[in-house]
């Protein structure tokens, strides 16, 4: 019992300033959310995702239709699934999940989350390393490289990883501010890069674009060893690229500051600038690189588009997005090492991240990793959704673990684990690719949590305060 208390106390100590709902005077207006979403979704990894679509042989029409529809579905997921719960509870994911799942299950969730953050930050460091290596004539990893390709690559990644980690130790807030300054410039760099190389691909007027797009950029033919992508792949990838954030509910942490639930629609600025304009632009860049027989890593393709400014953009994009990711991973990891100083935890996380970054496979297989990352965390978002909206309608209690002082909610744990097993089964038995598993997975997790909660709560006798009343009370607050 003492051990249990210690674990709960550790978690609470780390998040001590976040346990209360956000107060009215701290709510933010639309401009903050527009800036935040536009900045967060124009990252270094966009220089990888656009080229990977080209490698997977998507056709031009499929790409544009898939991005338009998939990004719209992502925006709707933020607006109708994440934002309403965030603005009604005013709690971050951590505290909401703690109430539902109990501190011990939250601990497990934190560890998985931290590891995923380390790998994600690792891919960003890899991206930044491709820019740093250019002046030193470093041999760049290719699209099919999974392991370190040269001594130069190892040295460059270690250097970039060390600098990013040291800067993260010295001051997360300053770099977060720098990131905010960099984001408007970064968006324009993507636009400029894509536009400036079009003449080299044979596009000299807007009328030329569509034929060239089909014949030279998004040709509809996958590279050897790559799965053929269709409009469905693009739609689902665009929808679920940030699955952990919207239907996985991680963005409750941001949207709890929104004055209105419909601020969730401002995610459109991130989706359509970062996940449409930037992906299209980086696809154009890689097509030129392939045509010229050059290297296809983020640094070289950005240099093709914008010269030294392009290299700076890749470096800044990789660095500013790796930094908060390392910070978040450190925060989650601190639950395992409560007696460590923050700098030690950040250094350890930076070390894991840098080792991960040594493997270019992480960057070159980013589509698969992003899909896996979202899928692993999504079921807990479905649990929050079901707990908030569905349990009260069935006369069950919300936040049952908190009410019963449980440290581990077995319905939440089983819903999480069984959903992942079910997704694995669907993938193995029917061959449904990982990009599509989030959709059935969400319904499975929701159904499981509702059913298991019914079993748990009904077996423990009558519930004194019907959940429905609580839901109405919370709804009337917003």
């Amino acid at each position, binding site marked *: 019992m003492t051990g249990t208390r210690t674990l709960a106390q550790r978690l609470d100590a780390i998040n001590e300033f976040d346990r209360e709902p956000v107060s009215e005077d701290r709510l933010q207006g639309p401009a*903050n959310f527009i800036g935040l979403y536009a900045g967060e979704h124009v990252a270094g990894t966009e220089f990888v995702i656009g080229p990977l679509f080209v490698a997977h042989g998507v056709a031009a029409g499929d790409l544009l239709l898939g991005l338009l529809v998939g990004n719209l579905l992502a925006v709707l997921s933020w607006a109708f699934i994440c934002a309403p719960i965030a603005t009604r509870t005013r709690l971050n994911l951590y505290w909401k999940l703690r109430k539902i799942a109990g501190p011990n299950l939250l601990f497990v969730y934190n560890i998985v989350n931290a590891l995923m953050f380390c790998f994600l930050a690792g891919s960003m460091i890899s991206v930044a390393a491709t820019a740093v290596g250019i002046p030193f004539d470093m041999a760049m990893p290719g699209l099919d490289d999974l392991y370190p390709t040269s001594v130069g690559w190892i040295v460059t990644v270690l250097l970039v990883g060390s600098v990013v980690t040291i800067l993260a130790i010295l001051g997360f807030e300053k770099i977060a501010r720098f990131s905010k300054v960099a984001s408007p*410039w970064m968006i*324009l760099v993507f636009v*400029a890069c894509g536009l400036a190389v079009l003449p080299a691909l044979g596009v000299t007027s807007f009328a030329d674009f569509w034929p060239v797009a089909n014949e030279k950029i998004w040709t509809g033919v996958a590279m050897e060893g790559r799965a053929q992508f269709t409009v469905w792949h693009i739609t689902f990838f665009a929808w679920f690229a940030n699955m952990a954030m919207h239907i996985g509910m991680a963005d409750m942490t941001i949207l709890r500051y929104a004055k209105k639930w419909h601020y969730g629609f401002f995610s459109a600025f991130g989706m359509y600038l970062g996940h449409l304009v930037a992906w299209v632009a980086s696809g154009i860049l890689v097509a030129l690189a392939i045509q010229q027989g050059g290297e296809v890593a983020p640094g070289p393709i950005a240099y093709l588009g*914008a010269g030294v*400014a392009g290299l700076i953009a890749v470096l800044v994009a990789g660095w500013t997005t790796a930094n908060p990711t390392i910070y978040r991973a450190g925060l989650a990891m601190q639950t395992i090492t409560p007696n460590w100083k923050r700098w030690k935890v950040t250094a350890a996380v930076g070390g894991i991240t840098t080792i991960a970054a040594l493997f270019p496979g992480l960057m070159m297989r980013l589509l698969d990793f992003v899909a896996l990352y979202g899928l692993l965390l999504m079921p807990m978002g479905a649990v929050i959704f079901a707990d908030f909206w569905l349990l009260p309608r069935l006369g069950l209690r919300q936040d049952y673990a908190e009410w019963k002082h449980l440290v581990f909610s077995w319905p939440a744990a089983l819903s999480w684990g069984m959903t992942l097993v079910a997704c694995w089964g669907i993938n193995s038995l029917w061959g449904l690719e990982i990009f599509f598993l989030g959709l059935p997975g969400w319904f499975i997790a929701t159904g499981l949590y509702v059913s298991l909660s019914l079993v748990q709560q009904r077996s423990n006798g009558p519930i004194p305060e019907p959940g429905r009343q609580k839901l109405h009370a919370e709804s009337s607050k917003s």
Partner: protein
Amino acid sequence: MNILLKSVSFLGLGLTVVPAFLVFAGSIEWSTHAILMMVGALLWFVTAPFWIHGDRS
């Protein structure tokens, strides 16, 4: 002072993106565009931090 800083910042953003349109239109060479983008980056990063505040929640 703030207006001057913002003007220089927006000039920097202009130099980042407008030359690309000129390359597309065939009005300037790619190398000129690359130099102007570098100048644009410099102007933006030297001035924007003074008026963009990092008040993220």
